[in-house]
């Protein structure tokens, strides 16, 4: 009886193994071994900054598609771009390093609260109620959806305003896609000037709620010799490429002309400097405290 059962189990196992080994021969899918090598060279954060679903799919795309550039990985920066270019035999174009930028200064502008918000601590949820608790409906909501989304731990919330540590920011754009108010934007690290406000309201409406906000007067648009400033989606948009190409000979006429002092020079050190303090963690427990109260 033992012999029978052992033999038959052995037989079944042998048959299955045989079928599987034959199948692995005939059904083998050939995968380019370079894909794995490239995927290993990538940071593996799966942030999606390259525009693909994750590091793995970018690796497959950059190997298989000659039109996909090797410098798409913003998280890895030039080092990874060079490595990927070497592995794929493509020319590594120089990517202009970018950084995330917050277009809101609501603390400085003394933006009041419309109402006290007690809902879920999430910007997306707060936005659904009367466009958020702030008097300005384009302000930073400050519940840190972007902080939680950031794969590189480069953001934190302070005084209801999100802060970005430029040294940690890899410009993957995850926060930009997360923000329901679209106050985050990717700009080149070399950028000279930027509007520190994202309001789409007209002048009077902005003045009513914020001491600092952009009133869309358009003085900068007229003043810019490079014509790099335009109105897009009812807010000021700066074409940093055109601005940088024109160079500093204009003496930052737009900044000088701005009556609200909201179009400002970007301190090159701001962009490059390391965060001076350890980012405070967003208090996730706060809703539990609400329940106890």
């Amino acid at each position, binding site marked *: 009886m033992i012999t*029978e*059962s052992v033999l*038959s*189990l052995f037989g*079944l*196992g042998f048959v*299955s*193994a045989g*079928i*599987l080994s034959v*199948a*692995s021969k*005939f*059904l*083998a*899918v050939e995968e380019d071994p370079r894909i794995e090598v490239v995927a290993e060279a990538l940071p593996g954060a799966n942030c999606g900054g390259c525009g693909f679903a994750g590091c793995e799919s970018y690796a497959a795309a950059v190997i298989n598609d000659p039109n996909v550039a090797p410098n798409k990985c913003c998280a890895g920066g030039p080092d990874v771009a060079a490595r990927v270019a070497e592995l794929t035999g493509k020319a590594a174009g120089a990517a202009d390093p970018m950084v995330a930028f917050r277009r809101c200064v609501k603390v400085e502008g003394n933006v009041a609260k419309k109402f006290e918000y007690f809902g*879920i601590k*999430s910007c997306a*949820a707060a936005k659904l109620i009367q466009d958020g608790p702030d008097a300005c409906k384009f302000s930073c909501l400050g519940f840190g959806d972007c902080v939680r989304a950031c794969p590189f731990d480069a953001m934190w919330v302070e005084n209801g305003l999100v802060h970005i540590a430029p040294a940690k920011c890899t410009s993957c754009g995850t926060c930009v896609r997360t923000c329901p108010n679209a106050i985050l934007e990717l700009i080149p690290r070399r950028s000279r000037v930027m509007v520190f406000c994202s309001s789409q309201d007209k002048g009077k409406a902005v003045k009513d709620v914020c001491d600092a906000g952009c009133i869309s007067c358009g003085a900068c648009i007229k003043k810019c010799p490079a014509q790099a400033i335009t109105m897009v989606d009812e807010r000021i948009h700066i074409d940093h490429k055109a601005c940088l190409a024109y160079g500093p000979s204009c003496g930052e006429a737009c900044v000088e002309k701005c009556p609200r002092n909201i179009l400002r020079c970007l301190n090159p050190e701001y962009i490059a400097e390391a965060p001076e303090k350890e980012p405070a963690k967003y208090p996730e*427990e706060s*809703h*539990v405290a*609400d*329940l106890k109260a």
Partner: protein
Amino acid sequence: MDIFLLFISAIFVNNILLAQYLGNCPYLGCSKEKGVAFGMGAAVLFVIVLATVICFLIQKYVLNVLHLEYLQTIVFILVIAALVQFVEMFLKKMVPPLYKSLGIFLPLITTNCAVLGVAILVQRKEFDLLTSTLYALAASLGFLLAIILMAGIRERFEITRIPRSMKGVPSGLIMAGIMSLAFMAFKGMIA
């Protein structure tokens, strides 16, 4: 009529998850999002039907012939594991889109107790091949139904304020229990 009754009762009354408590790990593990839950349910449906048919044939033409019925459990595990591996390879080569959507779930259910459970249940109940296949189909449809319902509830729970200690699996287990109670009401349907 009998087969129809069997079909309906396998989906609702004897739901494999909520009345027989088989396959609870994917039920709790893969029910955080509806899309993932559907993928898991579809993979389970696919594997259960296939495994039941193959196991039925193995039982009838190998185990019964050699009088080795007592080896049923271990043989079924062996066959199911090999089958899932084979199916995975087959899909990868022949039906890449299906492989992409089921891909990660297939290896997960190699040793799922719902798969083995259905294969053994149809033997206990002494069904013929056609009835077994239908029963397997109905059982896995019941699985699909339960896991999608669960995912729908849990998606809502994600944005609900519940005590931190109850988040995730604890509230999931409570919900599973309540759903199981609710499904017991179907017992009156087929009296």
